[in-house]
């Protein structure tokens, strides 16, 4: 498959999956449950499915290994995000959390994913 087409298919399905999980999360109460669905592996689910189908499951498994590092970074970012959003406001707090995610994920990636 042409790389551009592959990227487009993943983008389309990834976006659809995020919307589907967000809608599912909104159906649930209380709000905390909606938060869980906001952090659902929707993009991962779509991307890994496409990778498995197109490139092969060993490539998808390798992506999942990389995702472990990213998810570990996400745990740290979310824990810090509770405070950073409270103290810095929604936009700056989220950006701070994303920066933390990037730093932790990249560090773990550099250490273990070479």
């Amino acid at each position, binding site marked *: 498959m042409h790389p551009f087409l592959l*990227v487009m298919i*993943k983008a*389309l399905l990834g*976006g*659809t999956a*995020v*919307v589907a999980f*967000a*809608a599912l999360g*909104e*159906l*649930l*109460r*209380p*709000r*905390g*449950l909606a*938060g*869980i669905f*906001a*952090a*659902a*592996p929707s*993009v*991962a689910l779509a*991307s*890994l499915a496409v*990778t498995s*189908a197109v490139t092969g*499951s060993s*490539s*998808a*498994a*390798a*992506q*999942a*290994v*990389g*995702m*472990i*590092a*990213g*998810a570990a970074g*996400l745990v740290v970012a*979310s*824990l810090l*995000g*509770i405070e950073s*959003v*409270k103290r810095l406001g*929604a*936009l700056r*707090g*989220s*950006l701070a*959390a994303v920066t933390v*995610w990037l730093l932790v*994920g990249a560090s773990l*990636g550099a250490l273990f*994913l070479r």
Partner: protein
Amino acid sequence: MSDPAERPDEERPGFELRKLSRISPREYLIRFAFGAVVSAVAAIVTLAFGPRLGGLFLAFPAILPATLTLLEKKEGLPQAASDIRGATIGSIGMLGFAILAAALLARNAGLGLAAALAGWMIVSFALYSALRLLAAAVGERQYLPEIPTVEAEPVIAALRGREATLALAESCTGGTIAALLTNVPGAGEVIRGGFVTWTDEAKARCLGIDPAIIAEHGAVSPEVAREMALGARRALGADIGMAITGVEGRPNDGRPPGLTYICVTGADGRNWVHRHSHDHGAGRNRERDVRMALRHLHQTLTSMEQRHDRPG
């Protein structure tokens, strides 16, 4: 105001179909764009640098779009913080997803993904339930909002800056605003005092509100918020009066949970009433109320300062 003992277990998990429409098409569009961009980035990085590095982006923080869409709403902050609490649990679940996917995908793609998704759900919901049980065990259901005193500091600074005194009248927040403000060093110079007027009778007796006004408009109304602020200011001889009245738990007098009126009144008799109506759940409504009251108070004080500073 409702009796705290009567506060229902509002946060019992369940489905609410009507909530689906709470997300606007625009918000869905933003979420779609976010998912598409992250997926594309992950795909491009995979093509350029290999699947492992690309996989890193599959765990991109989904907190961002949720909070970004909330930015437009006035009540976004407590809501966003609440979402992120859930997101923390979800992220641990995502770690479970990634580990299961990495272990099982090479064997069978379909089953591996299904198992990983099931793993995410089990981990997330188990953690969520465990935290709820823990919260119930330590009595967190009746907790007071965790708001750093630092959020009250600008209000005290603004009051001191213009040598103004403040009187408070609180209904639904039960004195939480006064507790926060009086905890700031230097509060003694500017806080005259406050009333916790939980019942209609207390509002009438302590603040001198005509019971007919409460009967006509209801305790949770802009009219009563205004009367409360004026009454507190009058009773304590303060420059500024601030009052809050709202519904935190179950619907009260036909008013839905989450509806709150905050009034700030100045020395010149002018007053500003702010309305908030989003329901965050019994515990979180108070947090929102306290934060919004502090914010409106600070905004009003700074706008007053500007008027004073203006030449002529």
